[in-house]
């Protein structure tokens, strides 16, 4: 059964395979964050409900250029460290405020991310969402993303860092739907609810 747990709450008193956002102390498994757990699962895992974005290798992210120097650009990817891309990586020069998408190639022990394959995105809008809820915007095998882009006729790119880039189509409807998904991300039957919202 699914249950909301708070940090430090005991999940299991017996041994179990460890998933994410849990820790072991004196043989008992505790939750590390405010989140949802399912005690019927084989692994002890907590899906967080809130939290900052911590970059991981192979994440696709939406970044904003915040700084430029002789060698390259500083990119804000909604993490606590600024990233850097060299000018040699870009074909055309970037300006401050430009939006790019990129992949995280490596993360250092200080959680500093290296970016590869940067691509400048043209005119469009960036929508901020809660980073821990962005997987729900993508859905299983991109199902929710398909519903979003088809229902609003928008070109949508969702970064793992809690930023969504979109253009064309009904942007107001997209924003409304994204907000709805964000607010209800932990509830069941979300896909059907979103479909009915878009059909209205």
């Amino acid at each position, binding site marked *: 059964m*699914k*249950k*909301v747990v*708070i*940090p*430090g*709450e*005991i999940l299991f008193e017996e041994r179990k395979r460890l998933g994410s*956002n849990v*820790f072991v*102390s004196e043989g008992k498994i*505790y939750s*590390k*964050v*405010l989140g*949802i757990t399912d005690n019927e699962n084989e692994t002890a895992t907590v899906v*967080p*409900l*809130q*939290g*900052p974005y*911590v970059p991981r290798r192979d994440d696709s992210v939406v970044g904003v250029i915040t700084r430029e120097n002789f060698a390259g650009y500083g990119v804000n990817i909604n993490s*606590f*460290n600024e990233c850097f891309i060299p000018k040699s990586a870009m074909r055309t020069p970037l300006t401050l405020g430009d939006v790019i998408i990129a992949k995280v190639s490596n993360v250092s*022990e*200080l*959680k500093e991310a290296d970016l590869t394959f940067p691509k400048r995105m043209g005119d469009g809008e960036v929508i901020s969402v809660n980073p*821990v809820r962005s997987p729900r915007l993508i859905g299983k095998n991109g199902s929710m993303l398909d519903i979003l882009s088809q229902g609003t006729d928008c070109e949508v790119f969702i970064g793992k860092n809690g930023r969504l880039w979109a253009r064309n189509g009904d942007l107001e409807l997209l924003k409304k739907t994204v907000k*709805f998904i964000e607010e*209800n991300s*932990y*509830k*069941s*039957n*979300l896909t*059907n*609810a*979103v*479909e*009915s*919202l878009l*059909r*209205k």
Partner: protein
Amino acid sequence: MDRKIDYKKTKKRLDGRKMDETRPLSIKTGVIENADGSAYLEWGQNKIYAAVYGPREVLPKHTANPLKSVIKVEYRMTSFSVPQRKRPGPNRRDQEISKVLGEALSRAVFVEQFPNTEIGVYVEVVDANAGSRVACLTAASVALADAGMPMRDMVAATGVGKAYGELVIDLNKDEEDAPDAVDIPIAILPNSEEIVLLQMDGLLTRKEWDAVAKLGIKGCKQVYEVQKKALVNKFELSEAKGKGQATKTVKKKAVKKTVKKVKK
């Protein structure tokens, strides 16, 4: 306050509470939209806002630690929070409380997960009536959990001590001003009962101390239950309803109501 008051005779406290009863406590989360996590706490007459920002870049940079995150707490009292106007700037007491709160919270948060960063915790006392530091710690801990920080445990805190000849929990201002008053703010990590804050003002015998420590831990556990409720109640695990579905249920209810009216 009258020196003739004796709790041993009255068996009840000045505000009608039992000796081991805390003042009414309520906590609400997510009250500040622009913060990463926030909480509003009302504990008796104490009213406190707590907001958490971060992890973010450390400023000034020389305070950064490459092995862990630094928790920077800013405790402030608004000028109108106490009967006599308080000068709005930070004073020695504010600095001390900020320091001890930061140290207590650092023990609970997995700070080593965010090296070279700071977590800013801002607590603002809007109304104060004794025990504001424990109230702030309780609120700050809820705000940190609300921000999704990885934590070992919540930090639950309460005040205990002695007033008018009896050991009491959660002293109010009148009791704090009693001639024999002893005030002990205590904060624990409820699972392990590890003490993360303990200060004392006054004198106690060894026997009294043993009793008061037990009373404090009992009080903290009561506070923990309220913290837990505040965090869990925000998220209701039900089915999501799109606009179409929601209106349908409303309509059904409306139909039922009209049917009842017609029957009457």
